[in-house]
């Protein structure tokens, strides 16, 4: 095994040695032969096969078969149904809107954090809080917003009592599509902070100093250096936020207990009621539609991210 060059990881400064410079590895004490070592990869590979690959294939595949297991495109055709098209439309605009708000506000937060020590109290607290809200909130964020601007919410009642403003003059929108916007922004902004902060950190103070030394202004620095350098990372994060909102289920499920205004909720309806629009296996077709959208977005993300990585060496 010693003749295999070490892959230089980010934390290692090791130089990869040419293969020929070392004698072929003898069967050293304790060193298992390569085939035996490969056996060690089997349990994890089997696990991934069963619980990652198989479910994905089943989810996509089930959209392509009918109730008797015969191949059909009927479920895919159902994706063209006006009701389904509308849920995809709803999901898309909700994701675009909250991704844009999240990206702009989140980038603002990253800017405000610039220059603070990475191990300082503020950064540590912001990092932890962002992690909680971006990744583990789900249902609980929905509850928090119901307690705030729900029918009985604290802010709702305070506005009604203090200013005579009725938040729900136009109906109980909190439990409908518009009600998802604020809770979604509430987890999109922290996700932006998590994904965009490394790019902000990679900006070198020397660039700002060079700019000032050469007579540039602070605004000029951002216009001609900062923003162009950060633009690819910003768009990559924007795509990630879109995919995140598009595939998010928990918050919407807890807020909108009835109705299926967005694709994940439509999948819930398709899973829990056997036939929807008179079709079986619609959940699979919806899952396929969803994974196509998310895959395209994530592919775009990796393309842009590769370009962005240029400045983060």
């Amino acid at each position: 095994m010693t003749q295999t060059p070490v892959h230089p990881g980010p934390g290692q400064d090791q130089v990869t040695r040419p293969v020929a410079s070392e004698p072929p590895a003898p069967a050293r004490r304790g060193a298992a032969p390569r085939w035996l070592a490969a056996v060690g990869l089997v349990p994890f590979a089997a696990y991934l096969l069963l619980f990652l690959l198989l479910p994905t294939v089943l989810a996509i595949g089930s959209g392509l078969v009918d109730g008797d297991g015969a191949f059909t495109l009927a479920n895919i055709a159902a994706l063209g149904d006006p009701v389904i098209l509308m849920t995809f439309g709803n999901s898309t605009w909700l994701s675009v809107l909250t991704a844009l708000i999240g990206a702009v506000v989140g980038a603002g937060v990253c800017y405000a954090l610039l220059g603070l020590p990475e191990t300082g109290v503020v950064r540590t607290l912001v990092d932890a809080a962002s992690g909680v809200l971006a990744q583990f909130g789900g249902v609980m964020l929905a509850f928090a917003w119901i307690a705030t601007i729900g029918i009985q919410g604290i802010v709702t009642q305070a506005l009604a009592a203090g200013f005579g403003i009725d938040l729900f003059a136009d109906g109980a929108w909190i439990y409908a599509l518009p009600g998802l916007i604020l809770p979604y922004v509430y987890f999109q902004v922290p996700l932006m902070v998590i994904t965009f902060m490394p790019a902000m950190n990679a900006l070198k103070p020397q660039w700002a100093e060079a700019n000032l030394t050469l007579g540039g202004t602070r605004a000029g620095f951002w216009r001609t250096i900062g923003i162009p350098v950060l633009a690819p990372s910003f768009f990559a994060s924007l795509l990630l936020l879109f995919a995140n909102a598009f595939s998010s289920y928990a918050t919407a499920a807890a807020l909108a207990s009835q109705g299926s205004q967005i694709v994940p909720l439509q999948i819930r309806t398709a899973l829990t009621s056997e036939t929807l629009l008179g079709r079986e296996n619609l959940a699979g077709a919806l899952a396929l539609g969803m994974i196509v959208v998310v895959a395209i977005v994530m592919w775009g993300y990796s393309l842009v991210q590769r370009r962005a990585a240029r400045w983060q060496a």
Partner: protein
Amino acid sequence: MNGLAPRPLTRWVISILVGLFFAVPLLATFLFTLRDGEGYSLVNWTTLFAPENAALLAPVWTGLGNSLILALVTVIIVLLLLTPTMILVSLRFPTLRRAFEFVALLPISIPAIVLVVGLAPIYLQIGRTLGTGAWTLAFAYGVLVLPFAYRSIQASIDAIDMKTLSEAARTLGAGWITIVLRVLAPNLRQGLLAGSLISVAVVLGEFTIASLLNRQVLQTALVVVNKIDAFSAAIFTLLALAFAFVLLLIIGRAGRAGSGRTSS
């Protein structure tokens, strides 16, 4: 002072505006839990454990118990299945590293709601063979936490020279089990701790898969209780968010302590 940093005024304006947006729902939730019908008091908190609430909160305790079991089994999957594989890949199959990373990060791009469509028939089979015990859901959760656990552990693997350590140990006569348990694992402890804690946080917050497979976990129990008594649900929401926050704070501190040690 570095030339990139915003002016103090800018910093404060952004912090206050965004801080308010994030503080209001949490403060409102707290005030909401203080409501007692007429005014505000701590009665919802003090009666949380009162006997008359026992029946109401029974689903929460069941769900919390199941979630803790799931967290434990998921951590076992991370430590005994993922970690040895990662060590093996970086020591014996470094050429596989890129491919392994791609697969490990894949669950980020596959929405849980899509995964659950395919997991439903699989869990039907698991129910027939292994039973419907709460712990079986940990197989699915192991996949969910994979990207998070992988990143934490890989950061530790990159920070130490595993090849030299293991070769030194082998020269001194250690077998593979000794090398992994007594040489590599202690050196990877920061990453293993962070990976385990983040897995616990993900499992305690998971709702999508549990809810659609009709399992009782903490989050599904909160939804049930919320329909009967919104105050208790709000209290548990605050407690769970605070708990996750503390877990992530520990991860942050552990990560920093680790990077500080290796660079010195």
